[in-house]
């Protein structure tokens, strides 16, 4: 249960981080536009490859890092609890066979069977808990991934197109943007 508690605390911390960075990001949309180095399409592709990558490269650094960490932590918990579950399950299955064989072997005793049954019952509860931790971690990983993709596709205020115009010596970047649902055009030039 300490693993589950740790997971819940970590998850809540990451959610708070995501939530708190949301307001910062809302105020930082202009800088997001300035820092955007990839198109929206590329950002979506990167987000599909691994959560947070698209947001990070699109300028939403804090949200990207939060999603990246949330996904990584969820996956670590999933893999760790899955391995733990499988290891304990193998021993449990072996003891379960022994328990069932008490009846078949000659002169098996009721007290031995009862003792082993109680032990198996406790371990079955432990396996149930591990299975729950594993499932919650997996669902969290999928939820973060799904949120990340949905965020990249629907939710982000981001540049939709960018085009570079060659103006002789320097390049002027022309972007059509949507910031807080307000469409506009952003012109930027690098010196």
């Amino acid at each position, binding site marked *: 249960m300490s693993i589950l508690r740790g997971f819940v605390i970590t998850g809540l911390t990451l959610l708070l981080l995501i939530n708190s960075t949301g307001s910062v990001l809302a105020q930082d949309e202009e800088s997001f536009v300035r820092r955007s180095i990839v198109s929206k399409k590329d950002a979506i592709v990167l987000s599909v490859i691994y959560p947070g990558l698209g947001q990070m490269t699109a300028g939403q650094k804090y949200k990207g890092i939060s999603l990246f960490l949330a996904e990584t932590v969820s996956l670590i918990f999933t893999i760790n609890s899955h391995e733990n579950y499988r290891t304990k399950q193998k021993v*449990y299955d072996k003891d379960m066979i022994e328990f069932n064989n008490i*009846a*078949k072997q000659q002169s098996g005793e009721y007290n031995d069977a009862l003792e082993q049954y109680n032990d198996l*019952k406790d371990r079955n509860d432990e396996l149930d808990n591990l299975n729950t931790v594993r*499932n919650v971690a*997996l669902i969290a990983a999928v939820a973060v991934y799904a949120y990340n993709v949905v965020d990249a596709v629907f939710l982000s205020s981001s540049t939709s197109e960018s085009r570079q115009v060659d103006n002789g010596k320097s390049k002027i970047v022309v972007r059509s943007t949507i910031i807080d649902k307000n469409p506009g055009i952003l012109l930027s030039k690098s010196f």
Partner: protein
Amino acid sequence: MKKSIIFLTPILILFIVVSCSKEHDAPTFSKYGIAQKPANVVASYDTDTDIVNVTWDIIETTSVVDFIVSVSDSSDFDMGNVNPYITHSTDITDMSYLFEVKNYLSADVDSTILYFTVSAVYKEENLNYFIGPRADVPASALIKRD
């Protein structure tokens, strides 16, 4: 709303699928449920023959093929020196056993207390001479030799 549905639906489906994917089975004690504890164990010592007559009851004798009478020299049964004796019953309905004290105690012991308990032995499709639970209360017999 549409975005929320798109976001939540796959997670909900995954939760249902994953929740049902338990890979271990809970243990069941049903095959041992037939085994019963004998009751009303009584032990009476006959000084003339130096034999303890142990009797007991058991409600259901289906699948019972024998009994085991265990004797201990301690009131805390398992803390003592415990010896099991198979009754080799030819008639299961005859629930008694004559315990010869001379085979257990040396002749120089004048007085002691022995404790007796009984288990049924089961043989059926799932149980292979399985020794059932003991009677809850052991019977005591005061051995007092002349």
